[in-house]
């Protein structure tokens, strides 16, 4: 779906480095936690370098098929690098960071 980003052209100034889409189902506990978690992670590690879209698939059910969603919540990382799908409420920060390809900040260690 997404064209593979050209490494030479990277980073493109017009677009933020990280493009994240979070698909949730209304205000279920999992969804709420996921929203909180992703916001936290982004603010902590990707400040100013990301774009986060939160989609409620109750509102747009057609997207469920389009995005091939099964488990909810799902976070799809569209950029940079390969598209990754993260299923769950994102409470396992280590796995989230690893999957997003973010190096931990020294002060976190």
């Amino acid at each position, binding site marked *: 779906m997404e064209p593979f980003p050209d490494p030479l052209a990277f980073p493109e100034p017009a677009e933020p480095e990280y493009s994240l889409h979070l698909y949730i189902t209304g205000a279920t506990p999992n969804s709420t936690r996921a929203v909180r978690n992703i916001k936290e992670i982004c603010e902590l590690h990707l400040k100013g370098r990301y774009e986060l879209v939160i989609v409620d698939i109750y509102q747009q059910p057609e997207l469920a098929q389009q995005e091939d969603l*099964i488990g909810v919540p799902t976070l799809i990382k569209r950029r940079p690098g390969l598209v990754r799908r993260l299923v769950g409420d994102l409470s396992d920060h280590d796995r989230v960071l690893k*999957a997003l390809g973010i190096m931990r900040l020294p002060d976190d260690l």
Partner: protein
Amino acid sequence: MQAQNPAAASALPKLPKSPTGIEGLDEITEGGLPLGRPTLICGSAGCGKTLMGIEFLVRGIQEFNEPGVLMAFEETVPELAANVASLGFDLKNLQAQKLLRVDHVHVDRSEIEETGEYDLDGLFIRLGYAIDSIGAKRVVLDTIEALFSGFPNQAVLRSEIRRLFRWLKDRGVTTVITAERGDGSLTRQGLEEYVSDCVILLDNRVIDQITTRRLRIVKYRGSTHGTNEYPYLITEDGISVLPVTSLRLEHEVSDQIDSSGIPALDEMFGRRGFYHGSSVLITGTAGTAKTTLGASFARKICQEGKRCLMFVFEESPQQLIRNMRSVGIDLAPFIENGLLHIEASRPTLNGLERHLVTIHRLVKELDPYAVVIDPITNLISVGNMAEVRSMLTRLIDFLKVSNITAVFTALVNTGVGRAEMTEEGVSSLVDTWVSVRDLEGVGERNRGLSILKSRGMAHSNQVREFIVTDHGIELLDVVIGPTGIVTGASRLTQQLAEHAQDLAAHQEAERRDRELERRRRVLEANIANLRTEFESVEEELRQITTHEQTRHQTLQSGKQRIAAANPPIQNPPAANPSGE
């Protein structure tokens, strides 16, 4: 949708069912799958689980006007469409008409990272959206266990799948879930069979190098169902399930008589032929003209302007026609005018069930008046005895129920197994049993025909010799020799001897006649002699009498003359001669 079972309205409400439209399956399930509930179809690879699911959807759309959703976890939409196109299911077109929605769910472990708690709401929403968008009544989830390979958290999955089944029930859609068969359990996860209301097990077995597919309903909550294993086939028209026997022995019977095509054979039956709709078995050893008997019957049916269907497992149609022509049975014209259809196939070409399906299909298509199967014993090479028997039972049942006269030929060998097969397996099912056999005499074989049984009519008890002439089969008159009925050369000898005897007797009679005639003539000659003798004696006597009278008269007249001339006292001189 609720009005599918009108008979149930009066009594207690029966479980509403959703007919599948799959041939035979609705019969076994007594109406279809449980309406608005999930049904599991499980089986090992290559059983046709997906196909059955798709057929359920497509038939639902085409025959019952119920739109459907297919959620495929394993195959992509184009793949599925291509796979079922050969069965005449046009998924693309159905999708375009908004009667079908196909959603391929791609599950890839490598793409999915679990980062905490989650549920499968994504799937629910997708499904819900698909159902709502076309108003679907039927849903097929093709191999839901694919989820287990993508999501490592089994506990979540299991509870979510339970929730999914519940949710589907609440939505009131009739759902079919397919699952791979596990070791020792119906499914790999051992989950789906407990949450489904109906479980259909598909099985693919290879026995003696021949594959048979079988279907069994393991459970059906709230309904009775056929419990046997039913063979099923994947044919050009989809899945076809064959109930082992649908015969309840309540078929209509006919009083009409069908001729066997051989007048002399008809004579042997009390009512001059077979009852219409009965089954006739012709058994015999090799080369006893079983096929010829079958072909004569077929010709007779066609001559009467009725349709006949012949299944031959030994010869090609051309060969059969040529061979039958040599004995004066010309089948070619009937093939040309469409009254006769010859379906030839090698028995080993298909499994037994497939043969049965072919026969079913052709019988339904052509609606024949009579069917000839030559020979049924060849099918043994395909299956084992029990299978062949059950297949034949079903076949005979089917033909009887359809009120079609059926003639089967069967080869009987002197070997152990096969003779029993015929005797035990089929003969009790057939109504008429004609046996043809070799009557082996001194240095020759002759063909003998007898009727072993004929239900509902008297029949001859004689073994009739018959010969195959260039104008068909001819039964010969019974010839009785000194030791019983004789055949072949003995018959000819007997006939010659009888002829010679006749001749001798005839000659003897003639001789006697001649003798009599001669004697008569001799006697007559004697009589004539005697008569002549008598006549001469008579003549002589008459002459003497005449002379006497003449003399007497002369004497008298002389005396008068003398008396007149002389006085009476004078002695007459002529008195002396008269006294001599």
